[in-house]
């Protein structure tokens, strides 16, 4: 006996032949009915008992597979479109700005050159120096020669090796990189405990 007997209105169209097919399927369903074995529930319960606690939230969605990602996927896709649009707009604005002076008269080229000169002078030392400044600033505040960093660059590179022990101390107090790692390792360990239990 079916919970929802088939009715011809289900197809929104009168078709006695299809009704016959539906009734044949209903007959098959009735004939193929059988009671489940008495121990089926206990077997299922035992199988569930062997399972770890189910996952929830985004982790559950991740485990559930791509079909469950649909709502999150839409959001990510929308965010990606917005991000691409924003980047495109910024890039377009940059292109427009760079093209506009070159199209103009003789006065615009001068701003073009002047910005290029300043980067040439300062950036060329800084890229080579850039690894060392991350270390030197820790010393720098005590000595305070930071304004002359460009001139002081060659010598600190030699001092780097000597100063490596000191940044480790200043790292703990200053940037917080080491502290952050410590903090993140704490909750991570807790999470592991939670999942394990």
């Amino acid at each position, binding site marked *: 006996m079916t919970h929802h007997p088939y009715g011809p209105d289900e197809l929104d169209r009168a078709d006695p032949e299809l009704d016959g097919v539906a009734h044949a399927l209903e007959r098959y369903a009735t004939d*193929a009915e059988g009671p489940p074995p008495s121990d089926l529930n206990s077997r299922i319960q035992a199988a*569930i008992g062997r399972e770890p606690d189910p996952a929830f939230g985004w982790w559950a969605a991740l485990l559930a597979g791509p079909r469950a990602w649909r709502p999150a996927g839409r959001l990510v896709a929308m965010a990606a479109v917005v991000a691409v649009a924003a980047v495109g707009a910024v890039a377009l604005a940059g292109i427009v700005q760079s093209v506009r002076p070159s199209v103009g008269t003789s006065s615009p080229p001068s701003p073009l050159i002047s910005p290029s000169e300043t980067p040439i002078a300062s950036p060329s030392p800084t890229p080579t120096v850039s690894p060392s400044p991350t270390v030197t600033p820790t010393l720098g505040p005590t000595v305070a020669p930071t304004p002359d960093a460009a001139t002081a660059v060659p010598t600190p590179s030699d001092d780097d090796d000597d100063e490596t022990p000191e940044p480790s101390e200043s790292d703990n107090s200053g940037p917080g990189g080491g502290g952050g790692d410590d903090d993140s390792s704490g909750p991570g360990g807790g999470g592991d405990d939670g999942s394990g239990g």
Partner: protein
Amino acid sequence: MLPATWHDGGVDDHALVDAARGGDRDAFGRIVERESAAVYRTCLRILGRSHDAEDVTQESFVAAYRAIGTYRGEGSVRAWLLRIAQRQAYRRLDQRRPTAELDAVGEARLADPTGDPTSIVAVNEERGEIRRAVAALPEPYREVVSLRFFGELSLFEVAEVTGRPLGTVKTHLRRGLERLRPIVAGNEADR
């Protein structure tokens, strides 16, 4: 939270799911008690063999338990479980060796040892044809036909659990039945 109260009975499925999500395995056990017969029936109609249906019923509940965090309350818990179960059953059917139908014949004979062997074989063959015909339907027709007739869900429930509009589900049902017409009509003519 409901874990302390649902044991009194009369709690709806969504409350049980919420409790199960909160780690209450007894709540999920209650869902198993309520729905295992319906899941087993659906699996039996798809697979045709009781021991396969038992295995797949168990696998379906385990899969549902693992994925309970993804149940969003769209449709009834039964419909959600039956959708999982019918997928698992068809997966099992795909993996089954081709000679398995012979086992089903033997099983029917065991179920009714007093019956005429010839008629048992004929009836079994007819059932097998319907089963195979439904299994051979392309998606989404197979899903809709299976949930509607083997899972005994209403079309509204099928629409809810599949997330498709009711009109689309009706169309899928009609196209599925049209594809089944030659096989079923042939069986009806043989009667």
